[in-house]
């Protein structure tokens, strides 16, 4: 086995039969670790690059198997909770939890093992489908990402990368030729709001977008739509301008905010930060979709 295929990545999940992460049927690999801290994050378990303990309270049957905890993080009593400061994420409680109410997010998988998983649905990929690397931010594990893309390419599996755009540009020349399609997030075109809601300046993101474009990347823009935050015409028009200025833009996907994001945060022991008022209505989504795609 070659060394590149042995490189390991931290993966939260490999999801099969995905229809909305690029063309055709896709297997989406969610990698752990992200430089952004979006207020609306839909995959909060992928923010930290470290292993994390997830607790699904609804699945818990209160059997107490997790009391094997050596660090005193599992706290029982009337309000069962996990003392996350004490938790070492050793994973022993997750191993013994019969209900899978406790689970470890983030397992190390070699490039070849990930590709083997993706290989399983080869019969369904047809000409368009394949692997989408998502996250988190795939470029947070840049060497592993490039090795994975190379391995997929070697095996004849289609490749897509779903990126937030905030990464070290020096990896682009390697990544672009190995990637059939970039799903490139533009979260906001207003720099101040971008900084406020994601914690990062959009400058690097835009710079990377055009760098990828110059390298010949095929790009689909992906725009989260958060009602009252970026549902203004200026933003729509801004996205449309960017899309029009790219050499090889495949179109713009509008992704409406979903309140389930908040529920997912609770599994990490964080408060439910889902905000119903952020869910855009159908008309708003429709309009954003049309304007951003230059159809209005």
């Amino acid at each position, binding site marked *: 086995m070659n060394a590149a295929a042995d490189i390991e990545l931290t993966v939260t999940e490999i999801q099969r039969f995905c*229809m909305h992460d690029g063309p055709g049927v896709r297997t989406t690999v969610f990698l752990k670790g992200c430089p952004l801290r979006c207020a609306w994050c839909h995959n909060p378990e992928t923010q930290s690059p470290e292993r994390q303990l997830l607790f699904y309270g609804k699945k818990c049957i209160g059997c107490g198997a997790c009391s094997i905890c050596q660090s005193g993080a599992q706290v029982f009593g009337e309000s069962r909770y996990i003392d996350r400061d004490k938790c070492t994420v050793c994973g022993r409680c997750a191993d013994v939890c019969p209900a899978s109410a406790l689970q470890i997010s983030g397992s190390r998988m070699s490039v070849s093992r990930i590709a083997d998983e993706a290989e399983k649905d080869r019969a369904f990929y047809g000409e368009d489908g394949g692997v989408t690397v998502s996250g988190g931010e795939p470029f947070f594990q840049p060497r592993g990402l490039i090795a994975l893309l190379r391995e997929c390419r070697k095996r004849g599996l289609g490749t897509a990368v779903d990126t937030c755009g905030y990464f070290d540009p020096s990896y682009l020349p390697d990544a672009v030729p190995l990637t059939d399609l970039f799903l490139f997030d533009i979260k906001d075109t207003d720099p101040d709001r971008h900084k406020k809601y994601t914690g990062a300046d959009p400058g690097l993101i835009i710079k990377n977008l055009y760098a990828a474009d110059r390298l010949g990347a095929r790009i689909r823009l992906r725009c989260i739509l958060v009602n009252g935050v970026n549902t203004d015409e200026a933003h729509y028009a801004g996205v449309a301008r960017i899309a029009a200025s790219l050499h090889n833009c495949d179109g713009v996907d509008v992704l409406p905010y979903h309140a389930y994001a908040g529920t997912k945060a609770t599994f990490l022991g964080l408060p439910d930060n889902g905000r119903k008022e952020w869910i855009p209505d159908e008309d708003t989504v429709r309009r954003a979709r049309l304007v951003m795609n230059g159809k209005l």
Partner: protein
Amino acid sequence: MQFPSANGIKRPVRCGEGTRNFAYESLGHKYGLQCRETPGVELRGEFDDPLKKHDAAIRAICEQAPVRICEGELISGSATLGNAIKHVIPADHNGAPVFMSMSHLTADFFTPVNEGLDSVREAALASYEKYKGTEKEAFIKSCLSVLDSFDIWHKRYLDALRDKPEYRANYEALLRVPHKPARNFREAVQSLWFCFAFLRLCGNWPGIGRIDVLLGPYLKKDLDSGALTLDEAREILAHFFIKGCEWICGGDYGSGDAQHYQNIVISGIGDDGLDVTNEVTYLVLDIIEEFGISDFPTSVRLNTRSDEKLVRRVAEVMRYGGGVLAVYNEDLIIRSLVSYGYPVSEAVKFANDGCWEVQIPGKTYFTYCPYDFLQLLQHNTLKDYSPDVDFPDFETLYRAYLSDVKALLDGLCDAVRGRFVSENPWVWRPEIPCTAVSLFEQGCVEKGLSYLQGGPVYNVISPHVGGLADTVNSLYAIKRLVFEEKKLSWREFAAVLRDNWEGNEPLRQYVLNKYEYYGNDSDGADMLCRRFLSDFADLCGTLDGRTGYRFPGGVSTFGRQLEWAPHRLACPYGRKKGEILAANASPAPGTDTRGATAMIRSYCKNDLGKLPVGAALDVKLLPSCTAGDEGLDALVSLLRGFVTLGGFFMQPDVADAAVLRDAQAHPEDHQNLSVRVSGWNARFVTLNSEWQRMVIEQNECGCGY
């Protein structure tokens, strides 16, 4: 006028207002309710012979059944007696139906349409000469008598149509067909319909089979000559479909009011190995798309070379929901039939029994015997979890189970021997008279034997595994927990199961969550499933040659998981007593978590070619995952992948549990919402509440992210 769809997409309008109205009324129970008003005919007098009683009943039906001409209909003939909908010959004698009727066969409509029904009479006359004075004479006389009755019924339609100028074309077609070979598309459709309607009039529920192979050449000729346009042809064929709904009555039927085993098969390869797909194939899809008629569940024969245009069109029509379309992988099926012993020339003709079980149409006696294999495991092998039973290792347990399966199959074979008077040579007993279908089954007239007496060319009794996933999952959980991890002994585990998991919730959660069961593309359980089905098929093979029947195996439940549920004990894989479990060859509800592709892969790991009758996989898809161009691509990919991986039969259904729940609460708003049950569809509102609940639960486990 709205014809419902699962995803809210409006169905296209192609047919004229009159045809659409006709469809709306027919789907709205108009004709079914009329049928109910005339349940059947009354036979008087005494009969010394069952065959004579049968012939008198058929004659009375043909003389007395109401003649119905529907306004604007383009083809004529109607099965107007309500008791036929109850699967009996609609004639009573001394207050009871005279005889049961036949189903689970696709009749031979090729002979009457292409060669004319007169050719059947000629064959019967030839047989009469041959068998005169033998014990077969009575059956041949019955054949001639039923043909005479047919003529009476046929003449009554001619009389009714003769002086009505608006039905001139119907009249002229019927002047020729079905007695003489059809000359054009309209005559061919009329001939097919009239024979089909006759069989139904006499209470039988035949399947249609390969309608595009039958009608395609007639349409091509008419289109080439300009005698007919495609739009005109669509209207004519639509009337065939609409008239096929004439038994719909609404009301609570338990398993639904649209299951009269009238399956249609389209596409696939022909006798010459070339693709048969033609304009009729696409017209069938157009009609299903426009009206969502679910009474003719339609199966598409796909192969690795199927035209992209066809596969996309199939996916497009599937998206409306209703589960009207299902798919066969004919590459595997033809290979399977040939290796089972059918000549290639027969195997390529395969259709089904009117449901989804594969057969050689028009020449096969078919019945299937469904068994609850989970109950067999629980009751026979594990002795209802008795403390007195133990197994040193998994292999011993598995072999004990196989010997119970063998005993079951041997028992079936022994019971079948009762159908014969002598074993060498095999001589069939006199059976229930069934002359009408015998006339439409190759072999019967020639051999002088009825459909039930070994008349057809092939005689098949198919043992079916029911509860496949539950059985395999149960075995797998025992294997892992007791014999590999040794968490507890079998005796201890049996005690837990005897108590229905009471007080053992952590252990129950453990087996539910820590093992991957059949349907997740995980080799542990999947390979056990493969091994078991392969052993089952081998055991079926040992029955062949012992009687005049063959015993190819299959996998099905057809909704029986509902009636079996109360008799089943707690399952080793975490299910409690009485839960509704897996359908057909599908995973157990809630145990498959990796999506449709993983499920299809698990199913395809089985050596499905060893089960020539078939194993059905139900795939429930949410409308959201088939929406838009991406959804269409995904559906096409699923169909292609299913074929590539070597599947047998797949029934995808696009339905939203929320919509189904609304239909439960407001049936009046969803009269024609249909769902796939198994080899048939049901209008959801005509299912009883238990069936509705089961369908909703299955759809709540629908695939798609």
